[in-house]
């Protein structure tokens, strides 16, 4: 197996609030390989965005804090590095795209300013050079008349254009890793197609690793190489996209796939996962999914789920696949 | 038309002169006088009606004559004192011959006569004190007649005798005719005349020259090197003289303590503190201001007040010495007459001294009320005060808000009268309200213009019973006070009508009173009569405390302490 460009090990990010500790990310591990697209999948509140922010040290503190784990990038544990070191990596080596371009762009600065700022900072370009690069980046992401667009303020651009500008910004220093946090969620269907198209082209033209966060399995199947499914701050299942979608093991993953209204099938009742996502404050000892799981075992209630390697590169975090466990319905 | 003759003798206000020869001194230093009182209203003295305005212009413009602490004549612009003819009708004034206007032209008798005839007596300018220069002949009001005699001499001829008219004459100040003619007949132009509003005409007529007047902040004059009294002495000795206005007394006092100002008046309760200070001198001097408690004798006052005995009873119940001790911290003397005890005309022989022992007796007061029918004797022998129906008495006392001393006096009277069973309700009203709603009166239903005395049937808009107010009497000419006590007196707002008083005041202003002994006797008679009638309860003459930095020299403490202020100097 290739050596990971970024490894996350036992990452725990908690939020300490007056109501109690929210274990937003509670001990997850994954590797991002060079030039691959790893998708982080889960429902809202499952901790995927927090994971991304934790990698870049962008967790608001207080109330959040990374309480344990490592994030190793090129043999450097980012969580142990100085603020300054991490800052040098942000934007330059690891760039990030946010879900809602509308609010992720500074409304009082022009698009060009916001892109050039980073270029000047990290690549030490002059004003002119930075401007030129900005224009070429905007062109690359498909913004028409890029030179003019650079002088626009965010609100003068449509949602799709803003998202493109965001992408251009993240690409500006040729990062090794691009973290994209639900870049297609807040846009319309036709725009979503445009954005996905850009990502597909980027994958082909640039040698960079992509950590793609989304809740849509459809998008994952379009763009992902490998995927990690998260549930309530923990891992549920990880495998290549084809393997996982074709052969899901974890009851949650199975449920997730089943409850998608499928275009090709008939109009039967949708399958759904009963219940709701549990509170992350003081969760139970056992598997967090067990209250909604139709295959739950007695042990699920008591004991944290184990990691089971069910196939080459396919791990599932579920008691069902634990060889040690005797199956008994709960 | 009657004027309100409220003279307030502020210490700093008097700009007067002496011709005594002193060693010439080096002039130097800035003299800063602090005050928390109001600012002047105008420097154009003919339009002024407030003490501060006279004081401001007085720094640059002397009057004919002034008085020292013993009321002795001190010549200023006059070459000699005003001469009165034997029949008391012709007043002859001779001014100095070295007086100059700012353009270098001489000040002449013509200027004075012009000022009198064309300005003060004119009907377009509406000089507030016109009545001082008028006499009544066959029910007609006419002005006295001024006449130029020579370049430096002019006469004023009356047709009736007024022995105290001479004091009015002595205070006369001139306007330059050559400037005033430009504005003659146009009141608005005169009011706004730049020469008069920045005193640029005063030449060598005063110890200082006008520099600057920043409203509500400061009035600044600078040493006048050509001052006619400074020829030999080099006076005045301050380079600059500033009157600085402060927002609150606390800050003025702080400024004196910090040495930021040279002098100010000190409130009675703070004198003790300043006396302990190394760098400060305090001079305690008499003043001619006094406080009184007026009784409303008009129809909207408590009907009991119309009885002399009741008024006497109330006055008997109020302890004046206690008031002086508690409110004025001892800085005052009990008053029993409208003539201040510093006046040459003051005589207290035979005056009923209400409010001090033996005429201070709360039980006696009750008995007086019982006699008048405003009390009943209870079975245990005690007397309960009440109205005719036996209900408890409740009187309303008015005074102007914001005057702490008067408010305190009000409270003290409330306290004192409570002892004899009269409840006093205090009302502190703004000065303008006091004037408009309580003092001015008219006959109800008539189309009279409200005035301070509209005759017997007139009443004020708002009812009142007692009123605390402060007056000043000119100690040299108490006859001016007739406006308060005579039937036709224009300021007789409390409605005191007594033919004997009318008669006596008439006699004081007649030829008979030219004889000072006679006049003194008449005043004594008047004092006794008014004290007996008690239309008002005179409370106290106040003592003023002037605080100076020790470095100021040449001060002669006394009632007219400022008369020689141009000779004061810094150590």
């Amino acid at each position: 197996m290739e050596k990971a460009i970024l490894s996350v090990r036992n990452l725990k990010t908690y939020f300490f609030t007056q109501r109690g500790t929210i274990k937003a990310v509670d001990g997850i591990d994954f590797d991002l390989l060079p030039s691959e697209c790893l998708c982080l999948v889960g429902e809202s509140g499952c901790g995927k965005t927090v994971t991304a922010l934790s990698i870049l040290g962008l967790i608001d503190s207080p109330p959040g804090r990374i309480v344990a784990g490592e994030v190793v990038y090129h043999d450097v544990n980012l969580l142990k590095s100085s603020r300054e070191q991490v800052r040098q990596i942000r934007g330059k080596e690891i760039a990030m795209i946010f879900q809602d371009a509308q609010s992720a762009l500074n409304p009082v600065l022009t698009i060009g300013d916001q892109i050039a700022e980073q270029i000047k900072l990290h690549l030490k370009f002059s004003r002119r050079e930075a401007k030129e690069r900005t224009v070429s980046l905007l062109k690359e992401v498909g913004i028409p008349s890029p030179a003019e667009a650079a002088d626009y303020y965010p609100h003068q651009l449509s949602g799709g254009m803003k998202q493109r500008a965001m992408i251009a910004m993240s690409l500006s220093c040729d990062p090794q890793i691009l973290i994209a946090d639900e870049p297609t969620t807040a846009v319309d269907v036709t725009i979503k197609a445009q954005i996905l198209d850009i990502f597909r082209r980027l994958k082909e033209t640039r040698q960079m690793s992509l950590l793609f966060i989304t809740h849509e399995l459809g998008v994952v199947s379009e763009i992902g190489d490998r995927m990690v499914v998260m549930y309530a701050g923990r891992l549920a299942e990880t495998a290549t996209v084809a393997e996982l979608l074709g052969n899901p093991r974890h009851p949650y993953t199975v449920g997730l796939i089943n409850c998608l209204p499928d275009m090709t099938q008939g109009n039967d009742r949708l399958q759904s996962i009963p219940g709701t996502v549990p509170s992350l404050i003081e969760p139970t000892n056992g598997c967090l999914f067990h209250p909604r799981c139709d295959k739950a075992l007695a042990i699920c209630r008591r004991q944290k789920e184990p990691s089971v390697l069910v196939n080459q590169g396919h791990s599932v975090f579920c008691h069902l696949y634990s060889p040690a466990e005797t199956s008994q319905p709960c | 038309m009657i004027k309100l003759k409220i003279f307030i003798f502020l210490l700093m206000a008097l700009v007067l002169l002496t011709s005594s020869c002193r060693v010439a001194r080096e002039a130097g230093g800035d003299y800063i006088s602090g005050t928390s009182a109001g600012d002047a209203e105008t420097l154009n003295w003919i339009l002024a009606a407030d003490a501060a305005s006279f004081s401001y212009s007085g720094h640059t413009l002397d009057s004919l004559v002034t008085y020292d602490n013993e009321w002795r004549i001190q010549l200023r612009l006059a070459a000699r004192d005003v001469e009165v003819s034997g029949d008391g009708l012709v007043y002859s004034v001779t001014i100095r011959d070295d007086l100059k206007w700012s353009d270098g032209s001489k000040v002449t008798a013509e200027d004075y006569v012009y000022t009198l005839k064309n300005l003060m007596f004119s009907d377009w300018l509406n000089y507030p004190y016109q009545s001082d220069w008028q006499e009544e002949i066959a029910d007609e009001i006419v002005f006295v007649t001024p006449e130029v005699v020579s370049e430096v001499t002019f006469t004023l001829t009356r047709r009736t005798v007024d022995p105290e008219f001479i004091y009015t004459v002595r205070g006369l100040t001139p306007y330059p005719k050559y400037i005033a003619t430009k504005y003659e007949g146009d009141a608005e132009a005169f009011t706004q005349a730049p020469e008069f509003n920045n005193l640029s005409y005063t030449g060598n007529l005063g110890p200082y020259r006008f520099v600057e007047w920043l409203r509500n902040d400061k009035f600044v004059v600078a040493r006048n090197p050509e001052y006619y009294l400074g020829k030999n002495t080099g006076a005045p000795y301050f380079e600059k003289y500033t009157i600085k206005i402060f927002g609150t007394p606390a800050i003025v006092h702080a400024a004196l303590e910090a040495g930021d100002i040279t002098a100010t008046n000190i409130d009675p309760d703070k004198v003790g503190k300043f006396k302990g200070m190394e760098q400060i001198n305090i001079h305690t001097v008499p003043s001619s201001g006094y406080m009184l408690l007026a009784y409303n004798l008009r129809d909207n006052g408590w009907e009991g007040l119309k009885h002399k005995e009741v008024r006497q009873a109330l006055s008997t119940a109020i302890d004046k010495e206690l008031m002086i001790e508690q409110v004025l911290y001892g800085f005052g003397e009990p008053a029993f007459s409208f003539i201040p005890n510093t006046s040459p005309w003051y005589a207290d022989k035979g005056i009923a001294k209400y409010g001090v022992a033996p005429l201070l007796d709360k039980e006696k007061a009750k008995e007086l009320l019982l006699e008048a029918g405003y009390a009943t004797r209870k079975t245990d022998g005690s007397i309960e005060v009440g109205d005719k129906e036996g209900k408890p008495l409740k009187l309303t006392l008015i005074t102007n808000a914001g005057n702490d001393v008067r408010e305190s006096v009000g409270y003290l009277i409330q306290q004192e009268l409570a002892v004899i069973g009269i409840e006093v309700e205090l009302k502190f009203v703004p000065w303008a309200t006091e004037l408009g709603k309580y003092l001015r009166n008219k006959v109800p239903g008539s189309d009279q213009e409200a005035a301070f005395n509209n005759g017997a049937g007139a009443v004020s808009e708002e009812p009142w019973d007692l009123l605390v107010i402060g007056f000043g009497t000119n100690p040299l000419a108490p006859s001016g006070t007739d406006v308060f006590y005579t039937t036709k007196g224009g300021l007789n707002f409390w409605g005191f009508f007594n033919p004997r008083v009318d008669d006596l005041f008439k006699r004081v202003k007649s030829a008979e009173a030219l004889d000072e002994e006679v006049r003194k006797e008449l005043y004594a008679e008047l004092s006794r009569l008014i004290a007996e009638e008690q239309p008002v309860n005179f409370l106290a003459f106040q003592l003023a405390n002037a605080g100076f930095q020790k470095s100021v020299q040449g001060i002669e403490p006394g009632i007219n302490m400022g008369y020689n202020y141009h000779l004061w100097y810094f150590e």
Partner: protein
Amino acid sequence: MPMKKNWLRDYIIKRLFFALIVALGILTVTFILVRIGPTSPADKYLANIAARGQDVSQAVAAIEARYGLDKPLYEQYINYVANLGRGDWGWSFSTSMPVIELIKTHWIYSFQLIFLSSILGALVGILIGILSAVRQYSKTDYIATFFSFIGISIPNFWLGVMLILLFSVKLGLFKTYYDSGIPIFSLDNLRQLTLPVITITTGMLAGYTRYTRSAMLDNLRKEFVRTARAKGLPERTVIGKHVFRNAVLPLITIIMFDLGSIVFAGAYFTEIVFGIPGLGRISFNAIFADDYAVVVTVTLISAFLILMINLITDITYTYLDPRIRYD
């Protein structure tokens, strides 16, 4: 985009038009208040005449001519507006000068005070506010918050007196009064303005600290800040360029709004306490002299000043905020 220029011009004309309406409204409100007052300015004038011992009956005619009391109400109103428009603001009988002259000599004293305090208050307040927001929930924040609460709560008329007692009388560091003899543009003047400026600034500064803090916090929680950080920008740039740029716009409005309510009132008290001969003091003395013309004028001037400031703020704001500029 070609519409932009026209649009901005239109906007400014529109604002001016509204300002004109508001100005007329101000005049109308004062006119009505004066008219329905229990004592009309004429009455007060007459009371003054009477208090000085002058003949009231003679003055009545002059008063009627001045205020046109015999004319119908609308004519009086037109008269009132026209007089003010012509600069004829009446005659101040308590100071014997035209009100406009009075204002001309005294405005500078108020202005210097308000100017210095506003600048100082805004600068320091914003600085502390930023610090407080950036270090939210730190000791700095708690101390700044606590002191700003104290600052807001101290009555400034009281504070002024206390400062004089402490610094001028007890310590002798400053003069006890404001010396108007010192030229306005001199160091000595700055020195003697220290205590008055502190007096006004305390409350204001505290207010600005709070506003800035919350405006900064509002923006610190926004996503674009996270974007800026994700770009690897140094914290200084993130705060100074990204957060503050956004926070400053609403702040301008609040600061300008405060100028009317807090600073003017603060200056009013401070001038009285320190004896600074500004408009507040003029008005204060006029109240006691019942000098109507001055009281009305000072109120009007401050209202019009605020109107101007609002107008300028509005236009500046429009220019500064691209969201409005290109909308």
